[in-house]
């Protein structure tokens, strides 16, 4: 089954790298949407259905943790799994992200295999 993904990162280069890593990991992406911060991502989700969200933590305007807190209020996306991809590697960041609703956590730098390892389980039966 093909996957519709939303990639949220303030770096356009990193968004492209994440998309490339998802494809290298073997995911069949039918559509990839992008957002530069949490607020833009919420706006995208207002009229776009996705199956997976990959999200940075440190971003301007609205960071990834706040985005996760607000996600349950978006009817289109309240059950969509979120995997954080970030340079922040402390245990407290991981705990904070997971307690905000994230389902996975990938530290930069990463390989496509690491992306697959964290993304495939949260997609469940969708692939």
């Amino acid at each position, binding site marked *: 089954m093909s996957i519709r993904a939303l990639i949220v990162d303030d*770096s*356009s280069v990193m968004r492209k*790298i994440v998309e*490339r890593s998802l494809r290298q990991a073997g995911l069949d992406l039918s559509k990839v949407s992008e957002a530069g911060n949490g607020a833009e991502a919420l706006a995208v989700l207002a009229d776009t259905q996705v199956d997976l969200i990959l999200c940075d933590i440190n971003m301007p305007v609205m960071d990834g943790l706040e985005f996760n807190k607000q996600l349950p209020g978006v009817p289109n996306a309240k059950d969509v799994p979120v995997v954080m991809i970030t*340079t922040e*590697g402390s245990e407290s960041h991981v705990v904070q992200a997971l307690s905000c609703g994230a389902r996975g956590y990938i530290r*930069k*730098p990463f390989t496509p295999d690491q992306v697959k390892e964290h993304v495939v389980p949260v997609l469940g039966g969708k692939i």
Partner: protein
Amino acid sequence: MNSTHVVHAASENHAGWLPLLEISIREVFELMLSSQLGKVEAIDHSNMNVTAMVGLAGQLCGVLSVRCNGKAAALMTSKMLGVDVDKVGAEMSDALGEVCNMVAGNFKNKISGLAEGCLLSPPTVIVGDDYCLYSQADEPGLQVDLLFEEMPMTVSLQIQG
């Protein structure tokens, strides 16, 4: 998988961090650019006209910078994005900034106490070589010189306090 070497942030001997800085750089290039960095004895900094910087604040204050020439920066971008080097354009600054950000993040995650106690600024990138950088660092910085695809590259960490 990332290295798990750990040194405590309170160590007064910052020179002991040099191997961890080098490991941090090598991991970013191996994982994100599929590139093995070479060793270099002496390096010519004169043509390094692209500089990315990330500020560190908290338990460790300072600036981490990555310097290289434009050709190296374009090739890094090409390898990160999987595009031909002659197709690389304005995204070069963003790419080098991300390299710098990942090196800084990877490095602080290897020092006990810094992962949580040190924040990173968004990257800043300078293109050109006619500038002076004045830092409030009060001790000699750490510097790692390496070869990226036979082109020189310098990563330095200026530590304040």
